[in-house]
């Protein structure tokens, strides 16, 4: 399986967008690259960009490897991608609103009812409850991959609490610091206005009862969360308070935060904490991370949660397989970004197909994330395949399967030198009451191991700076 390389054509010619970078890579000595890579690592560690790996007590604070060779997209590629992203997120919002509203898509028989009603991330508490400005997903991270010159596939929609945007911002900062000369030759579209765009988005969705200048906070589970660095980083850039559940309380249907000057009203909560932990009175009673009464304030329309509660039904991997139909249903349009063909193991004929070709397919848990609990057929040994066969037969509806895509590759600085490695891309789509905002760039994740297709940081993936050329 030969993958599409973003720098070179199959014949070995350098694509125009990469020509300057390729020249530069040809002249810069390896030890200079090596030195700057180590410098980058040092800076990352000093500023504390680390993440925790679940189940890995020894390495509680680990660094995501950073690759110093940027990934380049042309303006044309980016424009096409942007149109597809806007379309997709629009459909996702319409779908969630419909599911917690009239349920027309279920009546029309397009998405099977039990896929929603028996879905653990479906929140009956949201049935018939309006949300401010009918927006559910204000911050989306859509994972896309390329397989050829023209096509982007959506691999996964992240409609709950997508993370990674701090890497987009910090990777750019580091590149500007380490390789200023590259930015003189390349017209790279800036990304550092992301926090401004995010704040504008969050303020635009404040409830109507909020005062003229709404108070926005970022709700984090706390310093033990794997994405805590990002939470504090974003709160800082946004200029909003980084709160934990214990800093908030609810009184008379309104959310307040405890400050040195007494209680202060909160209008918009950018929450980076899962539904399950939001409010112990409604969801998990043992949660100490949430705020008792938050859901009642939310349902009274006195506070906006971004994203809304119950958006998980839109990024469920089984629902994913219906996205083309969902988009046609709400927008009457053909999807601009493709869906990866997906077999739903809950359907018997799909299951038997998957079992027959297990060694060719990628199998994912319907609610999995972070690359945990995933099978890559072509790379798996016999024991793993057998294990997954048992799992699939035991609980088929928990799995989907997809063909193993040949993700595109980008030049990457690895031990052996510069070599192509597989990448994906997570751009961030901000949807406000007024408009949709997308910063030109995103988080490029790269599988550092030769041949590996798994880009997740928890599985040894790294990141790259993503350049959209403004010309």
């Amino acid at each position, binding site marked *: 399986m030969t993958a599409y390389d973003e720098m070179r054509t199959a014949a070995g010619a350098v694509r125009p967008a990469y020509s300057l970078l390729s020249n530069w890579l040809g002249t810069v000595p390896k030890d200079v690259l090596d030195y700057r890579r180590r410098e980058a690592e040092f800076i990352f560690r000093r*500023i504390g960009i680390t993440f925790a790996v679940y189940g890995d007590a020894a390495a509680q604070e680990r660094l995501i490897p950073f690759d110093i060779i940027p990934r380049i997209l042309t303006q044309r590629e980016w424009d096409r991608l942007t149109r597809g992203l806007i379309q997709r997120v629009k459909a996702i919002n319409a779908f969630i609103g419909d599911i917690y509203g009239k349920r027309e898509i279920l009546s029309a028989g397009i998405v099977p009812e039990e896929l929603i009603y028996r879905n653990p991330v479906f929140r009956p508490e949201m049935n018939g409850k309006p949300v401010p400005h009918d927006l559910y997903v204000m911050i989306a991270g859509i994972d896309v991959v390329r397989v050829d010159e023209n096509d982007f596939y959506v691999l996964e929609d992240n409609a709950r609490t997508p993370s990674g945007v701090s890497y987009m911002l910090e990777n750019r900062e580091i590149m500007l610091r380490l390789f200023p000369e590259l930015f003189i030759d390349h017209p790279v579209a800036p990304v550092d206005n992301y926090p401004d765009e995010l704040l504008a988005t969050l303020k635009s969705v404040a409830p109507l009862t909020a005062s003229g200048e709404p108070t926005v906070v970022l709700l984090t589970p706390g310093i033990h969360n794997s994405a805590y660095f990002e939470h504090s980083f974003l709160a800082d850039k946004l200029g909003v*308070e980084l709160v934990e559940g214990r800093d908030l309380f609810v009184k008379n249907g309104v959310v307040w935060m405890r400050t040195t000057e007494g209680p202060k009203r909160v209008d918009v909560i950018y929450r980076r904490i899962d539904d399950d932990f939001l409010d112990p009175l409604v969801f998990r009673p043992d949660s100490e991370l949430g705020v008792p009464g938050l859901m009642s304030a939310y349902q009274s329309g006195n506070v906006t949660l971004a994203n809304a509660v119950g958006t998980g039904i839109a990024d469920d991997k089984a629902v994913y397989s219906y996205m083309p139909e969902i988009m046609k249903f709400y927008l009457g349009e053909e999807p601009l970004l493709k869906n990866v063909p997906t077999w739903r193991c809950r359907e018997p004929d799909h299951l038997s197909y998957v079992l027959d070709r297990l060694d060719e397919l990628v199998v994912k848990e319907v609610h999995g994330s972070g690359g945990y609990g995933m099978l890559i057929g072509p790379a798996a040994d016999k024991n793993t395949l057998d294990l997954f066969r048992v799992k699939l037969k035991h609980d088929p509806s928990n799995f989907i399967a997809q063909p193993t895509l040949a993700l595109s590759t980008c030049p990457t600085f690895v031990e052996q030198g510069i070599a192509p490695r597989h990448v994906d891309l997570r751009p961030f789509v901000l949807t406000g009451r007024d408009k949709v905002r997308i910063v030109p760039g995103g988080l490029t994740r790269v599988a550092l191991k030769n041949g590996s297709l798994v880009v997740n940081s928890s599985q040894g993936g790294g990141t790259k700076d993503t350049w959209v050329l403004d010309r």
Partner: protein
Amino acid sequence: MLSRTADNLYWLSRYVERAECLARILDVASRLASLPAAYGGSTNEWESAVATAGCVDAFAAAHGEANEKTVTEFLAFSPDNPSSIRNCLEIARTNARSVRTALTVEMWDAINGAWHDLNSFDARGMSREEFARFLGFVKEASLRFDGSAYRTMLRNDAYWFSRLGVYVERADATARILDVKYHVLLPEKERVGGPLDYFQWASILRSVSALTSYHWVYRESVKPWLVADLLILNRQMPHSLASCYENISRYLDDLAAFYGRQGNSQRIARTTLTKLSNARMEQIFQSGLHEFINNFVADNNRLSAAVAEQYLV
């Protein structure tokens, strides 16, 4: 500002200041303990280091005898001593992580860098020379953190809470040094300072980094009552109780003006400052140095509780 943020800032500064204070205590103890026996007398410097650090009971529970090995291990590195230097820096850094957004990059860099460097020191089998380097590292980490705060923070409530932490902790540390050593400062013995006394007095000055300052202020040989004056009443001396309270009172007033509201902590700070401003050393010696110090410690604790109640919960 969030109460929790204020609380974290306050304690972050307290723990960094405490780490530095412990480093100075250990420095002084090593210095006294390394004097020839003839100059060292019968006092056990390691015991008094434990007392000055305020952890006599915890130490007794963990170790039997106080000697160089047990005390340096306990005060500098022990994971079981909540106030060991290691734990102070650890807690400070945890607090800093929780309030990253309220810190400047320079402050975060100082504390996070110190925390990373801390792990490069291997506590086991550390030579005296390495240990001295370790203490130097702790003092520098504190200076860097403090300097970063001073030079880079906005002058708003975050800064004032952070400063309050420094001075409340420092007042407490100076008071504990006085409490442990008060008997060598009493003037009535009127000893012509023998070599032992000189080293004791000098060590007190060193433990608040004021040996040189002493000579500049008094232009005299080291006299115990002047040492007491310097540590308690002299406002020129940054570690004196009076100077600490001048600062505490000032930052609490800044907070009150900023928030437009006064409270208990402002009243207590002002009363304590007035007491220190009106006091004369002769009076203090007359009515009892030890009692004076005890009262001060109680006042300082009341202040700390009032700050917590007014702002931090």
